């Protein structure tokens, strides 16, 4: 079902944990749908993401996309980070089953939410960053259309 990369990130998640006094924290998803991601960012004065951690409640894909997303943004500037799309996440994992693609969207959202929090805390506006939805339930797509 999952690629080797997904399994690797799932069983050895990178950057799992918390950052105390993080520059920005973002939580997205909802428990009803079975996945919640929380991202912690430590951003320096040059807008470079020095550190990133995550906590995730969710399936294997949710954990793996969180893990790979942290790798993709770590060391990047805020401006570079908001350009990390769910597509990049999927690619970095060598693909996801169709039913799990929404997890990569969640990871993208989580980064954005943490960046939004950072911007709010600092009282700045980040060019190109939209306010994250608190619930990305609508991204779900079901592989099998229900047939009667």
């Amino acid at each position, binding site marked *: 079902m*999952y690629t080797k990369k997904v*399994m690797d990130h*799932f*069983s050895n*998640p990178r950057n*799992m944990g*918390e950052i105390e006094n993080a520059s920005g924290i973002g*939580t997205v998803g909802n*428990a*009803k*749908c*079975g*996945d*919640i*991601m*929380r991202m912690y960012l430590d951003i320096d004065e040059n807008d470079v993401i020095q550190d990133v951690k995550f*906590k*995730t*409640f*969710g*399936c*294997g894909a*949710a*954990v793996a996309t969180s893990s790979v997303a942290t790798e993709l943004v770590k060391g990047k500037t805020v401006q570079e980070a908001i350009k990390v799309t769910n597509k990049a996440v999927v690619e970095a994992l060598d693909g996801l089953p169709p*039913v799990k693609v*929404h997890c990569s969207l969640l990871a993208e959202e989580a980064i954005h939410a943490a960046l939004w929090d950072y911007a709010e805390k600092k009282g700045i506006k980040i060019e190109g960053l939209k306010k994250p939805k608190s619930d990305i339930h609508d991204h*779900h797509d*079901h*592989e*099998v259309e229900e047939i*009667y």
Partner: protein
Amino acid sequence: MEKKIYLDNAATTRTRPEVVEAMLPYFSELYGNPSSVYEFAAQNKKALDEGRTTIANAIGAESAEIYFTASGTEADNWALKATVEAYEAKGKHIITSKIEHHAILHTCEYLQKKGYEVTYVDVDEYGIVKLDQLKKAIRPTTVLISIMFANNEIGTIQPIKEIGAIAKAHNILFHTDAVQAFGQVDINVDELGIDMLSASAHKLGGPKGIGFLYIRKGIRIRSLIHGGAQERGRRAGTENVPFAVGFKKAVEIALATMKDRTNREKELRDYLIKRVLAEIPYTRLNGHRTNRLPNNANFSFQFIEGESLLIMLDMNNICASSGSACTSGSLDPSHVLLSIGLPHEIAHGSLRISLSHENTLEEIDYTVDKVKEIVEKLRNMSPLYDDFVRKR
């Protein structure tokens, strides 16, 4: 452990080697078509009928009341679709429960689109159908009550005898999906007032791809699959003789071993439940404590998600499931767990362990150790757990 630990016997069982051995001659030696006139084929017809008789005896029915199908699902579809067709003059209303298998629920939804009416009766927190609600749901137009014998996810066994009596009192047909119960608990269709019953071989050591529908004599029934005159004109298609022979063998073994096997499974199950509840906090047992299948345990672990747990168990060579196998791959939490009142986030964190005669105490101990370790690991990863700890 090096060896695989298979704890998903509600999804499917290992075909017993004795069953395979019994089937083997019917592939390349006794391969005739049972409908043919020559002696060579008569042996196959005989094998088929002997299978029918063994199965009939197992549920206190007559041989002529047993019809082979290709699955439990087909039997369920047949029972519902053909009954409503045959009894349309009486009415177009069916009663079932909220925790049926999709083979029943999706068939009901299909029938609703065709203009039939379906009432889905609630269950209580243990998964037991609310009989007062069931009784109230009865209308003059009700033609069928279909309530499963035992639930595939939480293992709860329904008060079948009571339901049979209610159906009889109102002159309504009673069908039960006994796919999980057949071979695990004693079933006598007369004593329980069952008019139709579905079962499937692969849940009791038989092959995947054969089931049967019991139809009480005298019930008007239409065909689901039309064609040749097989199964006494009721279910067309060249018969799967090897699997009928295998089904027979599986039933023979299941009956002969029933008492000892289920006692042993109950012991293992209760030991498992005891350890899990004692050693893993924020855990609940789903389903009824005693009115449950001997081999079923179903837990919800708060703050974690089921698939992650399954995959990590898999990495440790443990095969288990989260809800029904058929719905995995779906994103919605199990309709059964929601029906017993679990909130979504808790329903997502469920684990079903279903035993067979092959499981050992050692395997259970190893499994509990691993579940404990993994639940802890996943909780450490879980923002929900964080929030909970913080709030405390």
